[in-house]
């Protein structure tokens, strides 16, 4: 359940940014979460609902943008798509690929007022 820690961290950043720019209420938060990130999206949404209470983001909607898993396979010498850490390379069936994207945990944007 480290989704609670992640949401506390999200709220801290969101609050800080909103205040710094002279706003008082957060309407919407966009996150970018990689397909292979170590996060359960339902748990993240649930945790956000709890953590946002009594804050300037108390009514904020959470929008999650999922980013696809991308890797480089040295045997095929080309980029490939993966969706789990133990997926075989779709080209050669090997496991030598290295992840190049898809483990992001990022706060992208806010809508504030």
């Amino acid at each position, binding site marked *: 359940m480290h989704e609670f820690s992640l949401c506390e961290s999200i709220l801290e*950043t969101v609050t800080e940014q909103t205040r*710094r720019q002279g706003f008082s*209420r957060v309407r919407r938060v966009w996150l970018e979460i990689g397909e292979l990130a170590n996060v359960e999206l339902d748990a993240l949404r649930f945790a956000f609902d709890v953590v946002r209470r009594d804050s300037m983001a108390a009514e904020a909607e959470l929008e999650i943008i999922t980013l696809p898993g991308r890797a480089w396979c040295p045997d095929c010498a080309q980029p490939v798509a993966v969706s789990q850490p133990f997926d075989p390379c779709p080209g050669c069936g090997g496991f030598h690929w290295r992840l190049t994207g898809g483990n992001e945990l990022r706060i992208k944007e*806010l*809508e504030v007022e």
Partner: protein
Amino acid sequence: MCAICGCGHPETGMHSPEHRHDHDPGAEARRITVEQDILAKNAEFAAGNRQQFAHRGVFALNLLSSPGSGKTTLLARTVQALHGEFPVAVIGGDQYTAHDAERIQAAGAPAVQINTGKGCHLDAHGVGHALERLPLPEGGILFIENVGNLVCPADFDLGEAHKVVVLSVTEGEDKPLKYANLFAAAGLLLLNKMDLLPYVDFDVARCLDYARRVNRDIQILPLSARTGEGLDAWLDWLRQGQRAALRQQVERLERELAAARARLTGSG
């Protein structure tokens, strides 16, 4: 700070009629670009810890496992074997109790316990505070024993040189796949309780194959903390890391010394 909305306005009481915000209710919504990693704060604290370790030549390890993998028994034996050679210290994370720290202290090393309470993992900020309560093992090894959990600790960098995952043969051989994020983040896998292998259905080759699927660079050492089988290879791995951390400290100090000498020559 404005007490109504905490916006940084110097007025502290109720909003007076003159205290107008450009963000009063009814104001138009605006978009703010953030583009910040959710774990950015933890990463900052981890970088601070890492710098502290580098300055003092400390080889720091983050030990991860399920509850019951034999991590504390392994640590107690490791501490017993090494604390005469160089300084060793332990930070232990558990939800409650200081039992593990007491076992480590009995084995001969300073240890502090972080009780995470509701938390399921250690974070870099908590480790930073634990370091204030512990004599830093300069030129030696700091073991950070994480909370027994194969999910959450994977994401939280503590400033360690390596994550070491302990898996025992009494667990499922497919754990490297089930908890792939953590095995992918680890530098070393210790396969513990090898003395129990004749009594359990655990396919070592399959387990190691799974581990290499998620992490082709992972090093693997089978051992038994109870009988001592395989322990020498683990201790040698630790000594190599400790020597490397010391060498890096020496190189850094030599660079600083050379720079200071150059400044002295330049100013003389």
